[in-house]
């Protein structure tokens, strides 16, 4: 066999050396990784995979409720599948003794606490409320210490689709939750903070301790869906549409005023920028702001017409025991005692604040000034409304669920500070299962939930 010429050998060695030094050791593996990453990146933009993940996460919340029902209180998801909630006394008070009406209101493991009132509105509307101006406690007894819009909507859905009212309410929440999850991975968010961060934001949101409220007969999911829709339209410069959606949210819960306030501030910022840029119609965003409270105004108008008092909600809340303690804002004792509260609300409050500070300006710079204003103001106004008024610490973790900046911050810091993100997720998941979800399904029973802090509220839930 003839030997190869020395120069040919040298050439071969040179080429091999070039390959070794310029290509990875396992080109196929590296290529595969790159191809997988490309494919995943493309998939992450497609509507169907995004919708699938959004739905999967909602299903996980439902599964967690089922698992919690079995393991904590040994109850199935629905303990009265053949009989929907109903009233034996159509004028029964929502805050009377136990068991409360409507009968079977808590048959679903997802129906606890305030769900009773929303289901009540879905069944009997405002029929149990006085028809003319009455003392606040009478409004409170018919459920008006909670906004009725969500329950009334549930009643209509139940009537149209022939569904039990609790299932109809859950359905509204589930669909809204899917929309919210879909929003987190939308182009709007992904373009701003990057695709991986957007997806991590989605996971941080769903791992949050009170995230299961998104599938409960509560107003959180629908409120967030409407507010996020408003944010999306606002980002597309469609201020009237945005105001209409945010206004609709304001009719669902009192604290949704945070979104309206944030929208107003964002509109102000937009106007200032446009005026500076010499836009002749700079005032347009501001003109839409009254629409951002239409839900609230409509609710008050309905109260005036139906129950004879536009401020029935305010009076009912007063009768319920609401107060304002603005000293809490600067009281270290309030925040410290929050750590030992039933749901350890200060842990999440400080954790979220820490995440926002860690993400800091680089995160906000990724958004336009209007968007950043909306995000900051939503959290700030939301907390300003909640902190002075909550009974003890009840619900703070749940209210924080409506502060999108905290979740965006979590997603944003995940790449630079993976250990901080991991620590946050672990803490959230622990609190989800051992604290919030357990306290929810067991109605704050410390025997079923040994991890709870100082008990604030505990009630039987049998119906």
């Amino acid at each position: 066999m003839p030997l190869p010429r020395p120069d040919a050998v040298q050439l071969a060695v040179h080429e091999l050396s070039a390959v070794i030094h310029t290509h990875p050791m396992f080109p196929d593996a590296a290529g595969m990784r790159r191809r997988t990453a490309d494919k995943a990146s493309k998939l992450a933009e497609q509507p169907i995979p995004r919708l699938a993940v959004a739905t999967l996460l909602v299903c996980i919340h439902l599964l967690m409720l089922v698992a919690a029902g079995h393991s904590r209180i040994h109850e199935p998801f629905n303990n009265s599948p053949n009989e929907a909630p109903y009233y034996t006394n159509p004028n029964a008070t929502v805050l009377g003794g136990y068991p409360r009406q409507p009968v079977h209101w808590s048959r679903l493991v997802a129906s606890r606490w305030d769900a009773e009132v929303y289901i009540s509105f879905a069944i009997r509307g405002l029929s149990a409320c006085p028809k003319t101006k009455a003392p606040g406690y009478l409004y409170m007894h018919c459920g008006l210490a909670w906004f009725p819009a969500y329950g009334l909507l549930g009643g209509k859905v139940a009537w149209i689709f022939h569904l039990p009212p609790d299932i109809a309410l859950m359905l509204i929440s589930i669909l809204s939750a899917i929309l919210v999850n879909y929003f987190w991975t939308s182009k709007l968010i992904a373009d701003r903070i990057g695709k991986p961060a957007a997806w991590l934001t989605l996971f941080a949101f769903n791992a949050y301790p009170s995230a299961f409220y998104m599938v409960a007969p509560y107003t959180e999911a629908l409120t967030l869906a409407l507010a996020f829709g408003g944010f999306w339209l606002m980002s597309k410069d469609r201020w009237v549409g945005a105001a209409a959606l945010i206004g609709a949210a304001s009719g669902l819960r009192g604290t949704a005023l945070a979104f309206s306030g944030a929208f107003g501030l964002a509109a102000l910022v937009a106007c200032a920028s446009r005026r500076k840029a010499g836009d002749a119609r700079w005032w347009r965003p501001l003109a839409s702001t009254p629409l951002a409270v239409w839900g609230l105004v409509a609710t008050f108008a309905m109260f005036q017409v139906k129950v004879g008092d536009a401020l029935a909600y305010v009076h009912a809340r007063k009768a319920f025991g609401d107060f304002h303690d603005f000293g809490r804002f600067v009281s270290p004792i309030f925040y410290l005692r929050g750590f030992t509260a039933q749901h350890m609300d200060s842990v999440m409050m400080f954790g979220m604040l820490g995440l926002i500070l860690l993400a800091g300006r680089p995160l906000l710079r990724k958004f336009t000034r209007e968007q950043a204003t909306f995000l900051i103001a939503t959290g700030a106004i939301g907390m300003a409304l909640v902190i002075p008024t909550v009974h003890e610490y009840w619900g703070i973790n749940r209210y924080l669920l409506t502060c999108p900046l905290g979740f965006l911050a979590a997603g944003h810091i995940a790449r630079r500070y993976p250990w901080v993100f991991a620590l946050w997720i672990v803490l959230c998941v622990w609190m989800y299962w051992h604290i919030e979800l357990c306290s929810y399904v067991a109605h704050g029973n410390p025997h079923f939930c040994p991890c709870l802090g100082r008990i604030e509220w505990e009630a039987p839930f049998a119906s």
Partner: protein
Amino acid sequence: MKLADVAPKRWFRVAVAAALVIGHLLAFTVAGHARLGLPFNSAPGQEIYYSDPDAPSLGPAPRQPYHWSRLIVSRWDAQHYIGFAVRGLTACPKGGTGQQFVSCGLAWMPTLGLIAGAVNDATGAPPDYVLLLFSVLAAFVINLLWTSRTLVKRLGLFEAYAALVAFNLFGSAFYLVTPYNEACVFACMLGGYICLANGQWLRAGVLIGASTALRPTAVGFAAGFGCAALLAAWQARKAGTARWWRPLVAIPLAGWGQLFMMAVFAIMLGDPKAYVHAQLAFGGQNSGLHYHRFFEAPFYLLSFTSQHMDGVLLFGSLAVIAVAARDLAKKLPRPELAFLAVASAAMALLPLAALWGYWGMNRYLLMCPIIFMAAGELARRRRALFVLWLVACVAIYWHVELCSYITQGNPEICPCLGRMQFSLPFTS
């Protein structure tokens, strides 16, 4: 004159170190007045003494020695350290049982008390003041060391000062000026670290060994030192250094204190493991190490609602480390990083496995140097977060830890306390 120009000067460092120590003492004085209406010393001129030299250390209140709690800084374990300073080991029977050793106070390490007793014998100074003086001097030394040339070189001037501030504002930092061994132990450890950073392995070993004589959990520092020495020797060998094995020689020295105390116990009490037996008897059914806790979510969650909200500082510290670890790691040579990481992990995890509930966790975290170095780094990179951390620490310092300490866990005087674990009268 700019602050950055003055900060490295010795007089400024001394002034800051002293001011911070005085700050703790002032905090005690103010807390004593505000919470209990008591002065710093409620029995000046009175002698600390035992009416029964064999009085049990864990009997009903009021416990002996009389007037042990006269200083506002003397609470809880201070009774035992002052007890050792007054009567030494005379109440401990030779060849006694674990329970008998508990009764004479041996569930606490007697070293610092015995040294204070010797000073008391030599000078006639009251034993509680002697112990306090040890701690105050050690705290002053620690504060000076935080801004020493070595640490400034490693961390940076601003970061070193920020670490000093973070250390002194930590929720349990006031223990530095109590008749406890925390200050002396930390001073030995930090001194050891500085020697280690300068390649003085024998000195470092001696200092860290000394800390193990004062408190048994300081074996965590010895473990860290061992890892650092191994890593340094390996690096030196790799670099072809002729005497690469030198750091290894110092390893046995890092445990001399513990061995010495065992020898003392063997000679005086006929049981080298007297402390261990006392601890086991004191712990009762809860004694031993419970490693399974590390993997239990409820254990961590319940720590947030415990008497001193220990979970807040535990998770806060973890978060601070997680944020700053990468930048800190870039500044420190590998052996030093190994020392700090292993020593801190051991100091946090050992007590975590052995604690009664969560009692003392915040105090044990004070012994983890990496937390404060990371906080210093945080101050440079994320100032707002650093401020948030300090605010949380100060709130816990004043409303939770210090209040619980001076009142011995009285929830009526300290409304911020979490789920009660221990509450005792402190009259003496």
